[in-house]
C-alpha cells in the first residue's frame, strides 16, 4: 500500500510518517501544495492524506485540480478548521473523508484503512449518458467533466435512471428504489427530487412523460463522453 502524505508541519509529518510506516504503508511526503499535486498526479497511490493549510497551493485547490484531471485516488483531508463551510468545501472539492486536528494517530489509521477498503471494494463499471458520467465506485457523477454535487438520494435517483436509459420510469418504481420498504413516502416527493436533480444537471436531460413517469436521455448533438 502506497500513501502520499501532504503536510507542511515538519514535526507532524515526521510523526505521521513513522506511524504510517509502522502500520505497513509505503509513504511519500510532500511539504507544499505544488509538490503534492505533482506527486498525486503522476504516481499511483492507494490513498492521499492531504493537509488543507499548505504553502504555495492550498489543499482544496490541489484536490480540485486532481479531480478535474480524473485522479480518483481516495483522499483524506486533515485540517484545523472544523467549521461546516470548510467541511462542505472539502467534500465538494472531492474529498472522501475528513479529520480535524488535533487527532489521535489511531483514528487516522482506522479512517485510512476504511478508505482504502471502500475504494478497493466494488468495481462496478462507470455509466454515461451524453455528457453525463456516473462512477459508482466513488459514488460521483459529472456533467461534461464538471463534478456534480449530489446528495445520496439524488445520486441514487440519477444512478437508477442512468442504468435504465431511454426507458420511461414511473414514480412508484422510483419511490420503491429510493426508499427502504418501511419508509412510506408520498410519490409526489419524487417531483421535488427530479426538480433538484434537473437544477444540478440541466433542465432538459430528464424528460417528463405525462401520466407515465420520467425518462433520462442525452441532449441532441451531444456525443458520448
Amino acid at each position, binding site marked *: 500500500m502506497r500513501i502520499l502524505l501532504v503536510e507542511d508541519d515538519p514535526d507532524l509529518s515526521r510523526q505521521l510518517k513513522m506511524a504510517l510506516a509502522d502500520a505497513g504503508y509505503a509513504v511519500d511526503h510532500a511539504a507544499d501544495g505544488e509538490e503534492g499535486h505533482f506527486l498525486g498526479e503522476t504516481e499511483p497511490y492507494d490513498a492521499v492524506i492531504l493537509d488543507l493549510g499548505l504553502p504555495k497551493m492550498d489543499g482544496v485547490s490541489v484536490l480540485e485540480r486532481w479531480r478535474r484531471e480524473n485522479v480518483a485516488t481516495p483522499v483524506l483531508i486533515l485540517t484545523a478548521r472544523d467549521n461546516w463551510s470548510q467541511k462542505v468545501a472539502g467534500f465538494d472539492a472531492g474529498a472522501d*473523508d475528513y479529520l480535524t486536528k488535533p487527532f489521535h494517530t489511531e483514528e487516522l489509521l482506522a479512517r485510512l484503512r476504511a478508505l482504502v477498503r471502500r475504494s478497493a471494494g466494488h468495481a462496478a463499471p462507470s455509466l454515461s449518458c451524453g455528457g453525463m458520467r456516473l462512477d459508482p465506485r466513488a459514488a460521483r457523477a459529472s456533467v461534461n467533466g464538471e463534478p456534480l454535487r449530489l446528495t445520496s438520494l439524488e445520486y441514487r435517483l440519477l444512478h437508477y435512471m442512468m442504468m435504465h436509459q431511454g426507458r420511461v420510469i414511473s414514480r412508484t418504481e422510483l419511490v420503491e428504489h429510493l426508499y427502504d420498504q418501511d419508509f412510506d413516502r408520498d410519490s409526489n416527493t419524487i417531483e421535488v427530487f427530479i426538480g433538484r436533480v434537473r437544477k444540478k444537471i440541466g433542465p432538459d436531460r430528464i424528460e417528463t412523460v405525462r401520466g407515465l413517469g420520467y425518462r433520462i436521455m442525452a441532449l441532441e448533438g451531444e456525443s458520448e463522453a
Partner: protein
Amino acid sequence: MKLVAQTRRALFPRLGRSSLVLRLVLLAAIWSVAMLVVAGFGLNELFRRAAVDRFEAGLEESIKGLAAETTVSDGQVYAPPMTDARAFRPFSGFYWEIAQLGPGQSVTPLVKSRSLWDSSLSPPAAVIAHARKQPGETVYFDTIDPLGKPLHAGAQLGSIPGRNSPVVFLAAENRESIDAATARFVVIIVGSLVILGAGLIAAVYLQVRVGLQPLFRLRREIAQVRKGKTDRLTDDYPAELSPLAGELNALVAHNQDVVERQRTHVGNLAHALKTPLSVMLTEARQQPGSLSDVVERQSEAMRAHVEHHLRRARAAARSQSLGERTDVTDVLDELARTLERIFQSKSVSIDWTTPEGLCFRGEKQDFQEMAGNIMENAGKWCRRNIRVSARELDPEWFSLTVDDDGPGLPAERRGEVLKRGARLDESAPGSGLGLAIVDELARAYGGGVTLEDSPLGGLRVVLRLPRAEV
C-alpha cells in the same frame, strides 16, 4: 446661548423630540397666522378709513353749501334751502346747524335744520377750540342725536357777509351706515383669511410630507436592512440624503467586514494552535509515562479552551452583524451531501425538505453550525435514515426538525444534553457538546432547541429560529 436653549425648551418642551413634519408645519403655521392677523387688522383699518373719508366728504359738502349760501338780513341769519329732504323730517339722521360763539367755548344755535326739532348738535368744547384755531378747516367729532343714534359730525368756523362775529357751521349724519359696512367687511375678511390660512397650512403640510418623502423611504430601508430583508440601501436618494445613505452603506459594509476579520483572526489563531497540539498529543502517546499523561491532559484542556474562545469570539461578532440572511435550501443541500460522505461507511441517507425560498435571519456560518451539529449527531446515532424538514411557523419564525431511526434518548436524560458544559458519557445519543452548542447559538438568535421522540424511532431535535422576510 444656554438661556436661549432653556427658553426654547420651556416654550416648546416636546418640539425637540417631536417629528420634523410637526416642527416644519408648526413654524410655518405660526408665521402665516401672525402675518394673516396683521393683514386682517390692516385691511380692516384701511377699509374703515376709506368709508369714514367718503362720509366726511359728504359732511364737508353740506358745510360748504351752508357757508356759501347763508345770508344776514336785519341781523337775522338766513340759511339756504337744503336740497336734502332729510333736513326737514324730524330726527331723520341728517342735521345741520349754524351757531354763534358764546363765552368760553360754548355755542348757541342761530339757525338749525327742522330735523333737529328742539334739540341742538352742541359740539364739545375741545372741537370748538380746535375749529377756532383753524378757521375754514372742518373738525370732525362723534355725538348722538335726540333719539340716541350715533352721529358723525363736522364743525367749521366761518363768517357770514354782513355779520361781524364769526359763526360755526355744523353738519351731522347718522354713522350707522359706516359701522354696518365695516362690520360686513370684517366678517368677509376674517372668513377669507381663515380659509387662506387653512389653505396655506395644508399646502405647507403637503409640501413637507412630499419634500421629506425620501427621508421616510430611508427610514423604511434601514428597517429592512436591520430585519435582514436587504443587505444595503439603494442609491437613488436626493443630493442631501445621498451621502447619508452612502455612509450607512459603508457602515453596514464595515460592520460585516469587522465581523469577518474578527472571525478570520480567531480562526487563524485556533488553526495555528491546533497543529502543535496534534504534534504534542502524538509525541506524548508514543512515550508513555507520567509526563506524557500530563501533556495529553493539558493538550486536551488547551484544545477545549481554543474551541470555547473560538465560539465566544464568534458570538460577540454575531451580535454586531446586521442585515444577514441565509438560504435554508442551500445549507441543507450542502450539509446533506457532506454528511452522507462523512458517514459513508454506514451509507446514511438524508432526506430533506424545505419550503421554497425560506431564509434564516442570521449568518450562514451560524446556521451551518446549528443544522450541521444536529444532523451530525443524528448521523452518529441513526441506523440508516435521517429525515430533515424545515417548516414556516409564522412570519417571524421557522422550525427545522431532524429525525433519526437510532436508539433515541430517554426523556429524563434530554435535559442534561442541552445543559451548557454538561458532558454525558459518549455512549448515549446527543452526547458530547454538540447539542449544547446548538442550543446556546439558537438562544443567541432568540430561538431554541427541543428534544422529542421521533416517529422514525430515534430522537427528534426541533430547532426554532428567526426567519428573514422575503
